[in-house]
């Protein structure tokens, strides 16, 4: 066994993920939030705006559910662990910072996927038909990776006060929802809106979900997939690089 080798570090990242799920995600309030959020999103958008068909709303609802759940807890894990000194315990263990970040990402993507499936099931229960199931599953997985990397990116500022990070996180997450074709279809967006929309990974995910349920899309499916994959890669590399730089300042 080479402790510093890639397979061994992946195994240790999985241990971090299991620890996160047990401590931060398998909590009553978090699970209740996870189940109620999609339900209330449906109630708010479906019952509150009858002029928009459910087939259009579903892409935004799935997009928001995945985006908010995959970035809900992960930004606060480092600040929590920093203040509880458990991060120092991890720092003295034979695990790289990249593996710790990767472990946190795995936990957040599993949580995001799990809760998003609730939204998808509600949509199907309300009569929507899924036309491209494989595309939807692949898109959810890819976007969950991307959003969990964004979640970890939000945790980069080396503060051990979770509320600071949550504030910053909200400041970034909410504007992103408004520019991603969730409330206004991309076809109806002004030119400046489209310029902003193409900068958001959420845009490509909602476009893929829309394709999965309605067979319509704004960008070609391949482009959506490639751009989402590139975003995932770039965010993952950046978040790992930045955490490596800021980690010592948390200690």
């Amino acid at each position, binding site marked *: *066994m080479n402790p510093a080798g890639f397979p061994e570090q992946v195994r240790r990242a999985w241990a971090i993920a299991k620890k996160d799920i047990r401590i931060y995600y398998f909590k009553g309030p978090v699970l209740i939030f996870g189940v109620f959020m999609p339900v209330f999103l449906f109630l708010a958008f479906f019952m509150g705006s009858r002029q928009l068909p459910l087939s259009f709303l579903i892409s935004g609802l799935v997009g928001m559910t995945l985006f908010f759940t995959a970035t809900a807890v992960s930004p606060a894990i480092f600040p929590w662990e920093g203040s509880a*000194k458990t991060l120092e315990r991890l720092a*003295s263990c034979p695990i790289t910072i990249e593996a710790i970040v990767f472990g946190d990402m795995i936990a957040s993507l599993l949580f995001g996927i799990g809760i998003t499936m609730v939204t998808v099931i509600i949509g199907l229960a309300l009569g929507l038909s899924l036309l491209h199931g494989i595309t939807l599953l692949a898109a959810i997985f890819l976007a969950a990776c991307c959003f969990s990397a964004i979640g970890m990116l939000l945790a980069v500022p080396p503060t051990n006060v979770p509320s600071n990070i949550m504030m910053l996180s909200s400041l970034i997450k909410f504007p992103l929802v408004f520019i991603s074709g969730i409330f206004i279809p991309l076809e109806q967006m002004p030119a400046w809106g489209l310029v902003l929309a193409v900068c958001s990974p959420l845009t490509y995910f909602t476009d893929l979900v829309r394709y999965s349920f309605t067979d319509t899309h704004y960008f070609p499916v391949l482009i959506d997939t490639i751009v989402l994959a590139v975003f995932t890669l770039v965010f993952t590399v950046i978040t790992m690089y930045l955490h490596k730089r800021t980690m010592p300042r948390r200690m």
Partner: protein
Amino acid sequence: MTAVIHALNLTKVFGSSTAVDHISFDVRQGEIFGFLGPNGAGKTTTTRMLTGVIPLDAGSATILGHDIRSEPVLAKQGFGVVPETSNAYTDLTAWQNLMLMGELYGLPRARAEQRSSDLLGMVGLLERKDQKVQAYSKGMKQRIILAMALIHEPELLFLDEPTSGLDVQSTQMILSLLRDLNRQGTTIFLTTHNMEEANRLCHRVAIIRGGKMVAIDAPEKLKTAIDRVHRIEVSFDREVPGDALAALGSVIEVSRAGDKWQITTQDKDATIRSLMTFSQQNGAAIVTLNTLAPSLDEAFLRLTQEAKP
């Protein structure tokens, strides 16, 4: 003897303050090495650099043959850490904490379970293994983090104030465990404020003050080295004249303390030999004979005071 820790010009700067200033030392295999110093001296910063928690600003540290900067994972694989503040996951049970550590150190599941069971028994927590750590007392938390540090049977153990604020029972249990571990070959790097603990436990101690190394030696040598003169306390079964004692070789001063004589001398060995001869020649049997060495507390205070800027 092989150096398990080799620190060379270890330096850490926080803003305009140099917390650790070019300190160098070796910790030998199989020894208990005490790292002493007053608050803010740089003990914890040094330990955190050696354990790879914070980066070095200058110098180098080799732990078990691996550079902590270039091979941190390999270095960390060989040691365990018990920090001053308990940092077990309080939302997990003792068992879950140990299993997590087992996974982080790459232990196979069966081995991790066996070790966890053995260690929980060793620290007296086996019956409470399924209880969340948040319900534990301070002593129990300290025992569980000791068990967590030992899960992978490390060759080297770092402990930062392991008995600070603990009750007598937990303190004695931890000290006894440390002695046993050391007997089995584990090298121990112990940061402590407790001079008595260091005196009884450590083969060598280093004293740090203001980020600089002040002294490094065996506790007994350190105690005697701080005084250029030594004191001997002696009593006889009959009255002897003080002037005769003052005339013995190397004696500087003689004073009466109850039924005993306190002798200040430059050469402890020569004076004790002279006292033996004096006893025989004068037919005065020695009842008690003690060398009054300064305590490690005194040595520590003297050394840290002298190093004050």
